[in-house]
């Protein structure tokens, strides 16, 4: 049995990862966001495509709006409007909102490399142990392998649904959000930690 890192070393590791992610990628770490990208890639692709069509049609749409405005308000309104807004500003806003985000395959690579990293470490430290259930304590709580599997499937669905509903998970709300002192993230972190503690206590009592 290999010793795990002491808390301060783990803290350095976790903090280092979240900072490295910000520096290399320019975003904040959020694994449930990556999950959403990977799972919903097909739907997102369809949305992107319709957005692109809208961009190509920008001129057509613009002239339609212009004709409508002229008919409604006359030339005077246009001159008045031109004084207030400059074109560069508008173009910037449009391109920013259509800035193509990271492709979903990159997120898939990210998730799979977590698996690779842990596999290599587990082999290196001798922690690797092939088993069909999760752990001894988990099996004590849930019983036979079949019951364990049902629990894992149910738990996984709860986690998948819950993280999407809450808008973040341990990394997004917990690590990145709390570090930025975003009130919602702190609330979410407290709620999921307390729920998990409550549930675990309950399972410990019934064990």
């Amino acid at each position: 049995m290999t010793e795990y890192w002491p808390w301060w070393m783990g803290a350095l590791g976790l903090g280092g990862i979240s900072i490295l992610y910000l520096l290399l990628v320019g975003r904040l770490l959020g694994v449930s966001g990556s999950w959403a990208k990977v799972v919903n890639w097909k739907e997102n692709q369809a949305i992107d495509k319709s957005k692109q069509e809208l961009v190509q049609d920008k001129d057509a749409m613009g002239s339609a709006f212009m004709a409508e405005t002229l008919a409604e308000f006359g030339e005077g309104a246009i001159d008045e409007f031109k004084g207030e807004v400059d074109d560069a500003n508008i173009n910037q806003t449009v391109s920013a909102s259509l800035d193509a985000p990271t492709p979903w395959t990159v997120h898939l690579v990210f998730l799979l490399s977590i698996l690779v990293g842990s596999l290599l470490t587990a082999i290196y430290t001798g922690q690797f142990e092939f088993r069909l259930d999760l752990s001894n304590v988990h099996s004590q709580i849930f019983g036979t392998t079949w019951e364990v599997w049902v629990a894992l499937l149910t738990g996984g669905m709860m986690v998948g649904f819950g993280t999407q509903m809450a808008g973040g998970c341990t990394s997004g709300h917990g690590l990145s959000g709390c570090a930025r002192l975003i009130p919602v993230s702190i609330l979410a972190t407290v709620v999921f930690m307390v729920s998990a503690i409550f549930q675990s206590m309950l399972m410990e009592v019934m064990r």
Partner: protein
Amino acid sequence: MKKIRINQYLAYGVIGILFGIVLTRIGFANYDELHKMFILTDLRMLYTFAGGVVLSMLMFFVLTKKIPAQHKIFQPGTIPGSMLFGFGWAICGACPSLVFVQLGQGAFGAVLTMIGMFFGVWTYRKTHGRYFGWDTGTCGV
């Protein structure tokens, strides 16, 4: 364009591998350790997590200018979603990144968790548009 793509894959891949190493060495994916944390008999990993948050906080203060505008808002799903996540985490011992670490350590049962998560994320996307329709502000968009 092509070069940017490859760099992106490399960056995410390197961080992912490091993340896997760190999570494995902390022991977050070991259900026995996690359970000990959740029944509050061993607070090592709780301190680890809190320490990671504090460290990130300090560095984020230094790097304020680099942080992109984020869209995290309170919405009707925040509390029920977090509760569901908390209960689920206690049951399957995995948050969305830990499931890969569990699998990497040889716990094959994590495949079931993974299928469950996939289904959960997919179901949420399907039901959200139809029944809820509020802004969730999911991270990393």
